[in-house]
């Protein structure tokens, strides 16, 4: 069975500080990977997707970047956090893109002060 793990579970960071969030998928080779952001009480906004190692596409610009250093790993980062970055970050995977079910990880709660 496939499992998806995100770290950390929660972060409290200062404005202007760097950030790195991680996601690992086990039990599935070559998954499509996605990062989503969910503001408190808001909808799910797709940030990035990746269909292969080393290749990441941006969907919306939020002063964030993403990388896929390994087949099963997806990293979301920024060098300078903004207050607007607060929210819930979800990693997801799918078997193939375009019309496949997405499986979401447990998420990381980020609070920027």
């Amino acid at each position, binding site marked *: 069975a496939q499992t998806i793990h995100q770290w950390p579970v929660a972060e409290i960071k200062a404005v202007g500080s760097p950030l790195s969030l991680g996601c690992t998928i086990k039990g599935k080779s070559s998954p*499509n990977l*996605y990062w989503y952001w969910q503001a408190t009480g*808001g*909808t*799910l*906004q*797709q940030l990035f*997707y990746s*269909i292969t190692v080393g290749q990441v*596409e941006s*969907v919306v610009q939020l002063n964030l970047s993403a990388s896929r250093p390994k087949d099963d790993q997806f990293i979301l980062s920024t060098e300078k956090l903004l207050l607007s970055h607060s929210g819930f970050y*979800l990693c997801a995977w799918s078997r193939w*893109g*375009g*019309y496949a*079910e*997405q*499986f*979401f*990880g*447990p*998420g990381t709660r980020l609070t920027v002060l």
Partner: protein
Amino acid sequence: GDSVTQTEGLVTLTEGLPVMLNCTYQSTYSPFLFWYVQHLNEAPKLLLKSFTDNKRPEHQGFHATLHKSSSSFHLQKSSAQLSDSALYYCALSVNTGNYKYVFGAGTRLKVIA
């Protein structure tokens, strides 16, 4: 561009009454439509996915019918249960090679005794 509209932010129902959550969409292409459900402090999970033919997907008593003529994919259930209380997202995806998913604003369903 592609968009999904969920007009109700909050729907409050008495247990046993029928459920109908609205979802309409706009897309240049023929998209696939999804319903995801997110319970409190949990990650979103797929509830239903549209089929390419005229089959009506059903799961856990919920069903939805894709009407291309009206660009709608409303979620229905004949009898609401307390455990149905959750946040419901309608989403679409088009297979144009960019693996982009668009989520609606979400509808919070609150079922009361």
